[in-house]
């Protein structure tokens, strides 16, 4: 399946900005079965410096610096991605690995030294008794990893209401458990937190999802949004993805931009602005199936 993704971001500043530095994580990943065919990032005002590098997690980061005065910054990223399918989920379905054995099985894995970091707390994912308590009934004694992941996804989907406006980028995941409301980022962080608090390796996936218009309506351009979900490591299979916001297993409708420990590692835009005063942000995302 081929998609064209347009991710438009616009910052409007109250006071003139003299200089800014930004780190963009907007280029979709190229991995087997998931090819980024084209990515173009257009910035106004034109950056004085622009460079790209691959980060610690394998994502493509773009650094831009602007040294001219401006009161508005537009960052438009357009990508074309070709997705075959995600095979790991089908393999995981028949995996008999018990969740309790995962940690000990890891030591036999080649990339164990890398995978281990996804079992540890990170900026948005704390060690927490609240989380352990919330998750405990999903982790029955002799459950397989596969069934634990599905039960947990189901639980989050049914106990947390999808409701924008209640949480921010910095809302702790423990508060989300109390509020029982949040957006995809909160759903993803919560599921990751539950898994890691039980010692399982889980990482954060940032990207997009194709949304279909209600039956009989036209597809609205720009009404989509960036999305976030979860990836869990299955010994001898690899990373398997789960989308707790929609309670489904990503197949060819999820487009991946980056992997990280949590949102902090893969925030689409992070930056420093030399100015005083406020800023306003508007984001438009459009995911269009082109074949």
């Amino acid at each position, binding site marked *: 399946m081929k998609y064209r993704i347009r991710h438009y971001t616009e*910052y409007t500043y109250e006071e003139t900005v*003299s*200089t*800014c*530095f*930004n*780190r963009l994580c907007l280029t979709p990943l190229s991995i087997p079965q998931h090819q980024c065919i084209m990515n173009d990032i257009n910035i106004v005002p034109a950056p*004085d*410096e622009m*460079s790209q*590098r691959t*980060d*610690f*997690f394998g994502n493509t980061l773009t*650094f831009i*610096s602007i*040294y001219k005065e401006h009161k508005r910054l537009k960052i438009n990223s357009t990508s074309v991605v070709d997705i075959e399918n995600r095979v790991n989920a089908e393999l995981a379905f028949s995996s008999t690995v018990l969740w309790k054995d995962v940690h000990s099985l890891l030591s036999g894995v080649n990339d*164990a*030294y*890398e995978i*281990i*970091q996804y*079992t*540890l*707390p990170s900026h948005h994912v704390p*060690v927490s008794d609240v989380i352990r308590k919330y998750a405990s009934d999903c982790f029955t004694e002799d459950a397989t990893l596969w069934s634990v992941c599905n039960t947990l996804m189901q639980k989050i989907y049914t106990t947390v209401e999808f409701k*924008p*406006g209640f*949480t*921010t*980028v*910095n809302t702790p995941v423990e508060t989300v458990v109390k509020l029982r409301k949040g*957006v*995809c*980022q909160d759903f993803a962080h919560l599921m990751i937190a539950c898994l890691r608090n039980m010692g399982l390796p889980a990482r954060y996936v940032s990207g997009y*999802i194709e*949304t279909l218009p209600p039956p009989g309506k036209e597809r609205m351009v720009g009404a*989509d*949004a*960036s*999305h*976030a979900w979860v990836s869990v490591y299955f010994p001898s299979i690899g990373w398997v993805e789960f989308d707790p*916001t929609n309670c489904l297993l990503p197949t060819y409708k999820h487009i991946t931009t980056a992997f990280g420990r949590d949102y902090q*590692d893969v*925030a*689409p*835009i*992070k*930056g*420093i*602005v*030399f*100015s*005083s005063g406020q*800023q*306003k*942000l508007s*984001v438009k995302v459009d995911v269009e199936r082109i074949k």
Partner: protein
Amino acid sequence: MDSTNLNALKGSLSQDYFSNQIFQDECFALNGDVKEHWKRLLTNVEHLTSEELKNRQQELLKLLEENGVTYNVYGDPDGLNRPWLLDTLPLLIAGAEWKILERGMKQRVTVLNMLLEDLYGEKRLLKEGIIPPELIYSHSGFLRACDNIKLPGKNQLILYAADLSRGPNDKVWVLRDRTQAPSGMGYALENRSALNRVIPELFKDHNVNKLGGFFNSMMQAFLKIAPHGKEQPRIVVLTPGPHNETYFEHAILASYLGFTLAQGDDLIVRNGFVWIKTVEGLEKVDIILRRVDDSFCDPLELREDSQLGIPGLLEVIRKGNVAVANPLGSSILENTGLLAFMHNVFQYFLKEDPIFPMVATWWCGQKKEMDYVIDNIDSLVIKKIDRMTGSDTWIGHQLSKGKKEELIRKIKFQPSLYAGQEAVNLSTSPVFTKGKLEPRYTVMRTFLVASEGSYEMMPGGLTRCSPEKGSLIVSNQEGGISKDTWIEVHAKNTDLTLLRNPDFRRKAVLPSRAAENLFWVGRYSQRVIRTSRFIRIVLRNLSQTNDQDSDAMKALLKTVAHITGTQDLLDKENTEDSLFEQLHDVICHPATNGSILSTVNSLLRAMYAVRDKWTVDNWRIIDDIENVKRRLALLEPENIRHVFPLLDQLNLGLLSFLEMNRQSMYRDEGWSMNRIGQLLEEISLEVLQYKTLLTPRFDESSESQILEALLVSNLGLSNYRSTYRTYFDTAPALDLLFINKQNPISILSQLEQLMKYIDQLPKRDNVSRSSEIATLAFECYSKVRLINVDKLIEADKNSGMREELYTLCDQLSTQIGTLSLKLSATYFSHSVYYKQGVDESPFEV
């Protein structure tokens, strides 16, 4: 060796030395005999006599205080600029032992250097399980953004320090490693020079190794990492600022090595390079000796809440356009848990055992080790693997039952963040206190610097002793005592090759911040001088008069409020305090904005912020000002009459400070800024005084009382008397105060000076702004030059006001104010930044 002398010494100085001392001592053997390599020193001490040593001890502390040697303690109200304590006796290390130490420390830093390179490179130790990956990933010092960044050359660790101690079996132990921004070498240097100056007799018959060579090697090490092999790199010392605990050291290292001292917002990234903002514009920076913790160095990619770093720095480092030492990310080596695995790391890299053992350590991230730590908590010291503060260290057997249980809960909750260590017994060394020697626990910090792929060790070090007898805590934060450290070995370059500063032919730069602080030192010092002089006269008048409500008195009191910017003292509705109480407040209350004390505080802050600019003599004066400040703060309102000598002392101190600067300050932009600051302050305060006091027309006796006060406070009384007449009249006074060019503080003379210094400022790329400043000064000057005194003294018949004088003063005030603002916008840096993005979630799927 005269053994009777030594016995006498043992009798007088070291009486009771062993009464509660059973551990290993550096100086005395267990049977009480003086160890061989200490004998000459103790003989020298004996010749001095205990009485004399006491005197010298006082002298030593005084010298250090006057030199401004300080150590700041966080969270302590008196913690800023705490005096540095130095013992009269050094620590001696025998030559043979030194050689072993040198070999051991070189071996250790070599391994740490390889480890650092591996952790941010191939990660073989993690892949092969020599170090558990969790131990690295759990530590806040492992910075993923720094992965695969390398300094040019073989050494990644440029500077290294380790704390050493001696155990009961005479063995030397490594207590901890300092790898990200090792501190202490500047203090070692300062200790040596102070001891040498105050008690040269101690050095008799010794051939103590000099420290200069080490700093020379340090310079070489920095030159080696210059980007693109640049030959005359510009090097800056990056400091978190005057509030940092070792700010003193940052400043003296900068001036000793000839580097520029800079804070994060003195530096900026442009076009792929790092630049320093100076009064002349941007200058390229090639090498940064950093004393800012690594995670604070780049808010773009590391801690986004940091205001101490340089946004975009990491990308410049990756491009190889700036070198930072020690490299960002090197704090991972300060991970306490690593000590548990270092033995294997030595074996892995060198196939050797460590020459010096480290403290036995159990990392709780492993189940078995955690259980051991919990079971044996009473005999262990528990530490967090991230070194944050001393409060992250617990001595097991000192904990109450409740605290112990709480700690165990914490460990079980996040085991990988904790490590247990064997409690070590430190050796003691003699500290001279209260006229005799006392054994104090002792830790020695050694320093190494990269040199041609290997390392060189400082032939000396920084020794620290516990502040109390029997206390095991040895740290500066807890108020320890330091010692000079003597090594006597034949080194290959004991002679001091002159320090070659690569910058020496290039014009030194004046960072904008330093310029700004010099400007404010000028303004604040004149503000203190002028306001205190005026208030002093008002106080005198007030205590001599019975009529507090006379017109003259009212006008004088109003002026006090105007020039200090405090509340009008006659505004009775707002206060029930007497006038004296209110004046006391205007002088002594630190929280009253504009009070003399609060201005002194601002002045001292500005002085400390440019501490590398002051001579030793100036430090002595600054120390005096500190003393006066403390006494002013303690003065009770009922003792207000005692304020006179204090204000005099303050004034004299500041005047000699300014005179000292006039004699010693290099005539560069910094000097101009300082003078401009002074002149702007003087002119604006005078104009304010004249506006309030001379504009209304009073009866003759009030007018003469006011004129007398004004002339006395502005030092014009005798000039007035000799030039004009013996009684006071407004017209000649205005002539003297405004346009008489022979009066150095007439407004006209001062404006002339102001124009001269403004003319000497560098012309910035923004030419129109620079010329605007000059134009403003000239406008003021011509206005004053064209004054017609006869017209100025004319008062309006109805209002009784001298309208023309009022307008003139008003215009001058406004223009001087605008000039000051424009100057600061042009030459000082005021970059504020915040993080991109808003808190609302952009996600809505």
